[in-house]
């Protein structure tokens, strides 16, 4: 995200240290982006063909009930004021009540979110553990068979519909081979066995010391997590490879080789050290993408996370839940994006 430098006039006037200005600009840009997201969801909520009042009171309510709710929702006020209310509510984590189960949307999201977090985190771990070494080796042995394998893996990853690959995974590893657990987070006998502390079932089971549940939950999560891991691996390995190639062609690498340093040390102690910052930005970005990619994966694996929540709400026209979910995913996505940007700016002296 490019931060625009102030105009010439501003620079002459500036007596504040530059970091204050940079920080202010960054915070301003974050606020602008988030405001933009809220504006878009607000507009979507207003142009949708569903009458929010009717959705609450039902079709048979009297005119006076209808009017009361109409006023209560502030729908008689100008749009700008309504937008103000909306921002106020979101700042207080109030996304309205779900029309489906009459519970606050924020509670629902807090309940389903850990499931998505658990899935996406395991996914990114798999992506990093395999993707980074693969990219490094592909760069070090450019043109070798392992480079070709990495290339094909990435190309297939970019071209494959994630939900279809998930179905194929279920078919092969669950249906035919029986190696993994089926859809859902745990088998039916293990539901609600361990007390929910973090909402992440692997962590909860470990905290409770119940390794049966842990094993069962692991057999259920491993397939969807590997799937997500594969898609982040495709991106991470490609980026790692191109960063490494850039480093390996630098002169200090030649110097190190001339000095007689072993190839292992050249690659891992010199070149790899210098791409760490870039790698962290890439990982933050693909983590954000995983949160999004988990929407379709969750549907396939009946994973009760935020993706399933949004889609179920969508199909039953529960707009408060849809928009609340969109805002939460959007805000996290934006934060991760900005975080990756900031990391780059802070740690890489060249990115001035």
């Amino acid at each position, binding site marked *: *995200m*490019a931060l*625009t430098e102030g105009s010439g006039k501003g620079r002459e006037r500036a007596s504040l240290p530059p970091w204050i200005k940079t920080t202010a600009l960054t915070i301003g*840009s974050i606020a*602008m*982006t988030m405001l*933009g*997201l809220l504006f*878009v*969801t607000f507009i*979507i*909520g207003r*142009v*949708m*063909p569903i009458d929010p009042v009717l959705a609450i009171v039902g079709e048979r309510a009297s005119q006076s009930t209808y009017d009361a709710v109409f006023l209560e929702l502030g729908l008689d006020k100008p749009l700008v004021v309504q937008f103000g209310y909306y921002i106020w509510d979101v700042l207080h984590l109030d996304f309205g009540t779900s029309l489906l189960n009459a519970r606050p949307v924020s509670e629902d999201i807090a309940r389903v979110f850990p499931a998505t977090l658990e899935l996406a985190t395991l996914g990114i771990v798999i992506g990093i553990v395999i993707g980074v070494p693969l990219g490094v080796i592909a760069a070090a042995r450019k043109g070798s068979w392992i480079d070709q394998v990495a290339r094909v893996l990435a*190309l*297939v990853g*970019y*071209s*494959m*519909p*994630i*939900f*279809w*690959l998930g*179905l*194929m995974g*279920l*078919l092969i590893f*669950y*249906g035919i081979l029986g190696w993994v657990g089926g859809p859902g987070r745990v088998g039916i006998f293990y539901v609600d066995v361990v007390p929910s502390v973090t909402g992440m079932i692997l962590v909860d089971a470990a905290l409770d010391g119940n390794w049966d549940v842990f094993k069962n939950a692991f057999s259920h999560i491993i397939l969807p997590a590997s799937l997500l891991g594969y898609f982040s691996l495709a991106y991470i390995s490609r980026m790692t*490879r*191109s960063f490494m*190639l850039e480093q390996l062609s630098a002169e200090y690498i030649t110097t190190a080789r001339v000095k007689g340093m072993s190839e292992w040390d050249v690659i891992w102690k010199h070149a790899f050290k210098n791409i760490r910052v870039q790698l962290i930005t890439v990982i933050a970005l693909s983590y*954000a993408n995983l*949160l*999004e*990619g988990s*929407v*379709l994966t969750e*549907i*396939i694996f009946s994973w009760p996370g935020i993706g399933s929540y*949004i*889609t179920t709400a*969508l*199909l039953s*026209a529960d*707009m408060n839940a*849809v*928009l609340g*979910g*969109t805002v939460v*995913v*959007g805000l996290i*996505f*934006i934060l991760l*994006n*900005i975080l990756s940007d900031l990391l780059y700016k802070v740690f890489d002296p060249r990115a001035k």
Partner: protein
Amino acid sequence: MAERTLRQWLLTDTPTSRRHAKLSALYQGWLAFRSNTMAMVGLCILLALVLIAMAAPLLAPHDPFVQNLGNRLAPLGSEGHLLGTDSLGRDILSRLIYGARITLYIVALVALIAPVVGLLVGTVSGYVGGWVDIVLMRITDIFLAFPRLVLALAFVAALGAGIENAVIAISLTAWPPYARIARAETLTIRSSDYISAIKLQGAGGLRIITKHIWPLCISSLIVRVTLDMAGIILAAAGLGFLGLGAQPPSPEWGAMISEGRRFILDHWWVATMPGLAIFIVSLAFNLLGDGLRDVLDPKAGE
């Protein structure tokens, strides 16, 4: 003999006219592109797809909508149904062939809308500069920071399910990168000497943008569009799979996977075949895009 002279004419170092130089450059680009085997494979697959879509009524062995409940879920290679039948006894091969039309329709529409919007925003932003630039680029950044699929979901929720709305939703989330590219190109072109020369001759802003800046932005946009196509196809299929894109009984590939999903463990081919079709087409677009990038924009490749 005539062909050889044509080749020589195209490969000349001393073009005799402007058109000659243009054709020569095009031909040399084509030669470079042709030597890239994978890109040619991608191009052939896509040409085949276009032909299949055009000749769908001739090629399809059955009507894609006719149901035959007596012959439902027939396996691969059963008589008269090469790829089997789905849960309503419809021929899967015929549905795939007709589905190619829908896929191309979606891709073509998005590929028309998103880059044009991006080109407009980007060139205006880059050429006019100042406040216009700041405001437009801020909006672009905001859209760029959104999660695309989730936002498309929300748009479709508001607009209602259907192909056209899916196209609008995908386009709304796809234009910002084009605006970024177009702006960057405009900034470099704007300050070049020949633009100053045209300005001295009295050309106005509109003429400079449309006649001199747009043509130079096109090649990088084309590369980007081709590389984005796979993502567009996957997004459209995803929306179809969720039941928010094309509606049944339309033979859209994503929706077909969604239908076949219920029988995945016992009748695997129903969901597998449309998925393979999606995979092959988006793979072809990726291969073609990589090849085009190497020809049109050699700096960007590794």
